[in-house]
């Protein structure tokens, strides 16, 4: 293929390396060397992640966590423009400003749906197995070029502006990946089996309603621990859903699967472990309370979970 996910990772790596370089030069940041090291290591993981042996990558990951834990990832100075300047620019450019922003989803969708089978000289244009991610990467480049053309700003300016945003997110930008490693360790150590056994041993298996309740709540709780419903689904379904609801009580597997997974999603709405949905957005939106998004979502999640118990109970049998 011509454009593979690896190239998108290289692009991200080079971008992060530039961010690290800017951080190093920013004298207003008292921890500039540590901050630059943090983003620099992140850049290395994107550019050389496939070459460096996993053992050393593991050490790199822990060093990043230690830098963040020691308060080494700090803010700098960003040469921001006044509200007045922004209003003037908005007046001048008008709704054309939306074009580059909307190009990101539009080009991603065109790439995902329209270009997936296109090939040039026998080579697929886009990496088919990672079509959405590759399309997103391409879309960002297209949107950036459009934005540069539209605003007549320089590429350096756009990189400096993105540093303002990245620093606002800070170490939280790496949290989703870090949590994925924890998920892998949970899986390797067999945490899921233990949880499923605990839930399985705690419920009166003859009571249809209690079994459904345990499965629905178990999916939500285990997802909150893992931060990911996909990780919870096989474990809870193998431990409770399949043997008790489907095999013992004769429940409809389609219903159990669909509503079970959605119960997991209710858990995703309530946990800081799902950092990419809950913690990163709080940082992106400059929220004072990093758990504000979770707190907002809890009532919806709990109500929906309550409904799921009854939906599964009445639809599955």
């Amino acid at each position: 293929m011509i454009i593979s996910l690896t190239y998108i990772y290289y692009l991200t790596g080079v971008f992060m390396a530039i961010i690290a370089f800017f951080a190093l030069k920013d004298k207003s940041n008292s921890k500039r060397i540590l901050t630059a090291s943090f983003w620099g290591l992140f850049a290395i993981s994107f550019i050389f992640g496939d070459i460096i042996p996993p053992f050393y990558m593991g050490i790199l990951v822990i060093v990043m966590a230690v830098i963040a834990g020691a308060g080494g990832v700090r803010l700098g100075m960003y040469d921001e423009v006044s509200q007045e300047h922004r209003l003037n620019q908005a007046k001048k450019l008008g709704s054309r400003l939306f074009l580059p922003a909307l190009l990101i989803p539009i080009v991603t969708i065109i790439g995902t749906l329209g270009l997936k089978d296109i090939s040039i000289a026998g080579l697929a244009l886009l990496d088919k197995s990672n079509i959405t991610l590759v399309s997103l990467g391409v879309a960002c480049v297209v949107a950036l070029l459009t934005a540069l053309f539209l605003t007549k700003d320089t590429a350096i300016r756009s990189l400096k502006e993105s540093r303002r945003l990245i620093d606002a997110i800070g170490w939280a930008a790496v949290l989703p990946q870090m949590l994925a490693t924890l998920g892998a360790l949970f899986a390797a150590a067999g945490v899921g089996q233990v949880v499923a056994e605990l839930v399985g041993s705690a419920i009166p298996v003859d009571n249809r309603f209690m079994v459904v309740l345990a499965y629905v709540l178990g999916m939500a709780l285990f997802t909150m621990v893992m931060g990911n419903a996909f990780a919870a689904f096989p474990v809870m379904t193998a431990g409770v859903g399949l043997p008790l609801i489907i095999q013992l009580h004769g429940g409809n597997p389609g219903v159990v699967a669909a509503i079970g997974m959605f119960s997991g999603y209710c858990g995703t709405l309530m946990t800081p472990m799902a950092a990419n949905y809950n913690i990163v957005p709080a940082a992106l939106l400059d929220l004072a309370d990093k758990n504000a998004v979770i707190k907002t979502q809890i009532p919806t999640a709990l109500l929906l979970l309550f409904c799921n118990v009854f939906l599964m109970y009445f639809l599955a049998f």
Partner: protein
Amino acid sequence: MLTLLGIVVVIIGFVLRFNPLMVVVIAGIVTGLAGALPIDKILIIFGEAFVKNRYLSIFILTLPVIGLLERNGLKEQAQKLIGSVKIATTGRVLILYLFIREAAAAMALTALGGHAQMVRPLIAPMAEGAAENKYGKLSAKTHEEIKSFSASVDNVGVFFGEDIFVAFGGVLLMKGFFEQNGLILEPLDIALWGIPTAVLAFVIHSVRLILLDRKLDAEYNVRLKDAEECEKS
């Protein structure tokens, strides 16, 4: 039972507000050791999983575009646009986005949205703009509340929309799981049974957005009335 020690570390660490990256790394090491994994194996899992999940961080590629547009007044323009729609309220703007996000995800268009691409540059400013239009200057608390709701709408929309699409990875994961256990399921069966919850998710969150509008109305209209009375007296 000892393998659950990692979960305890996570809970204690998050409650005591230690740096989450450190908490996660320590929880990982504790879990690995409790699961009798040798230390080099633990490091290898750390490295492998981190590299394998780099796709989670690709969203940062959108930031140069968003940063540049923000410098040139993207948020201000979004607020101006919503200001010209007289019937727009925070709740209505967000319900519309919730609908678009969920419907698009159900048609596999999950790329149509996202916190970095849509919520920060467009949706949150519009939701805030609609409220500012109606009530004037907002308190920091209200800004925080509207922004949190904007983020929640993106999440609820995509989560409960995507599972309705038959070829979505999650649906295929469920089908694959049952297949391994000797049960053959059609993806369509799973997708269809997801619809009641998906509809309920939309209804519940929309009702909460309507209530948000009412709450803002109550909060700010009282203040507007107070201001008027002050002027009179």
